[in-house]
């Protein structure tokens, strides 16, 4: 835990006037001096650096942890990152981006449940890219193509990928002792619930062509399908959000003012709290490891946000508002 940044350090980083100041301040932390020299976009290069740092930390833990915990953590994080990479590949193919640009956008991990990302990127069309997942753990995505073609949209594939990842994570939880599963389950469920609600809220603006809630939300947890349906059909979301149980009614409050990004920030804070409470309840074993990685991932997300803000010259208060750790 000692190499993680404290809320004060994160605040100081966000308050730096320039990118150079941010890099200078970061040099005094466990990140050391990082280079901002690149031919392309500095914020994208820095994002890669922060991802690499997080992956290094995660792999360090995987190597040291007992086999069952190591296997679970590798599966949990690699699956999530691989899901992001697959989405970026599918989106890239859908919009006809050049192969080099798609590969450039990928999170720097070695392929986990697929042979090679280059092979999928080499597909002619996005449908072809999805079909190349046949024979892998992602095979169920191929059946989502039918819905994708029906609506001429990518969301059915993306939603199928989200639920597939969540299912695999829950399945891999079985490798952990019963007592260690609660923390991960709470985190995954909270994230899925909030994401489901945000998708439902987004559907409201396109209600005339709203898709079936059953198709869109094949799995629900703390926010039921009925509540999601209510959110899609409601004229005013205020009453629907107030009717949700804590912490969702608090996390989703910024929807009243249309500040959706703040919801993500509150969700990260909530996940941070879940990990902190989990660690407080059991300061040994899995919970400590998981809390360290949760804190580390949130730190990575906050640093990516600060780095982008600094490259764009965004005021510190506008950046701080959306960070999880200093708040």
């Amino acid at each position, binding site marked *: 835990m000692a190499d993680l940044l404290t809320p004060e350090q994160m605040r100081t980083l966000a308050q730096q006037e320039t990118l150079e100041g941010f890099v200078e301040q970061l040099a005094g932390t466990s990140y050391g001096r990082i280079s901002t020299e690149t031919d392309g*976009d500095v*914020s*994208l290069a820095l*994002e890669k650096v922060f991802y690499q740092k997080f992956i290094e930390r995660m792999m360090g833990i995987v190597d040291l942890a007992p086999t069952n915990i190591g296997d679970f953590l590798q599966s949990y994080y690699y699956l999530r990152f691989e899901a*992001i990479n697959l*989405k*970026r590949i599918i*989106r*890239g193919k*859908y*919009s006809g*981006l050049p192969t080099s*640009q798609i590969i450039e*956008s990928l999170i720097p991990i070695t392929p986990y449940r697929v042979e090679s990302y280059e092979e999928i990127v080499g597909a002619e069309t996005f449908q072809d890219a999805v079909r190349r997942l046949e024979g892998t753990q992602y095979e169920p995505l191929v059946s989502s193509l039918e819905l994708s073609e029906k*609506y001429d*949209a*990518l*969301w059915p594939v993306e939603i199928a990928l989200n639920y597939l990842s969540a299912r695999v994570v829950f399945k891999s939880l079985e490798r952990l002792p019963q007592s260690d599963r609660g923390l991960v389950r709470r985190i995954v469920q909270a994230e899925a619930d909030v994401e489901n609600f*945000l*998708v439902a*809220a*987004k559907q409201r*603006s*396109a209600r005339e062509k709203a898709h079936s809630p059953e198709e869109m939300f094949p799995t629900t947890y703390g926010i039921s399908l009925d509540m999601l349906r209510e959110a899609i059909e409601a004229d005013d979301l205020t009453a629907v959000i107030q009717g949700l149980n804590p912490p969702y009614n608090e996390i989703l409050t910024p929807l009243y003012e*249309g*500040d*959706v*990004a*703040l919801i*993500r*920030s509150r969700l990260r804070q909530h996940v941070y709290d879940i990990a902190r409470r989990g660690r407080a309840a059991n300061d040994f074993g899995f919970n400590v490891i998981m809390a360290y990685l949760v804190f580390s991932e949130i730190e990575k*997300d906050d640093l*990516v*946000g600060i780095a*982008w*803000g600094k490259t*764009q010259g*965004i005021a510190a208060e*506008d*950046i701080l508002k*959306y*960070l999880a750790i200093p708040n």
Partner: protein
Amino acid sequence: MEMKRRIGFIERGTEFLKLKRDHLAKELTTSIDILKGRRGRLLEELRVAYRAVTAAYISLGPTEVQSQAKSIKSRLELEVLPRSVMGVRYPYIKVEKQPKITGELDITLSEAAEKVLSVLDDILQLAEYESRAERIADELGKTNRKVNALENTIIPSYRGIIKFIEDKLDEESLEELVRMKLIGGALARRRE
């Protein structure tokens, strides 16, 4: 006579130019009034849209934002056509196709994109009005200079020339009259 015909033509032209000048001034005043109101409103809307885009970038990270944004197939398509007011040509922007923000975007980005899209029409209209006002002001300046030159230099100089010719002709006809009188007087004395 030729000079008189020409100055008549110049004076009529000057009147037309004055009419054009007045019409352009009226158009310019209207355009400036519209621009004043719209620019302030647009700046505020842009601030809101920029805040939403900033929030999306900080929340999702630049790579994810760019990956999602590039998945939008339907792009903005414009055509710039010429329009004219009192012979002054200015560009008119015709939106051929509005980008459609479909279900591909994350809600954070989708909200930001909608805010940017709602400002886009105003930006295009403002650009059109600014260009129109700029060109009208330019033409107004030119027309004003032409009217001033005609009223203060060319017409007076033509009038001066005409007056000189008229004076000269009057003088010559007076001389002719005097000469005729003298000749008439001399002939009368010889007959006596």
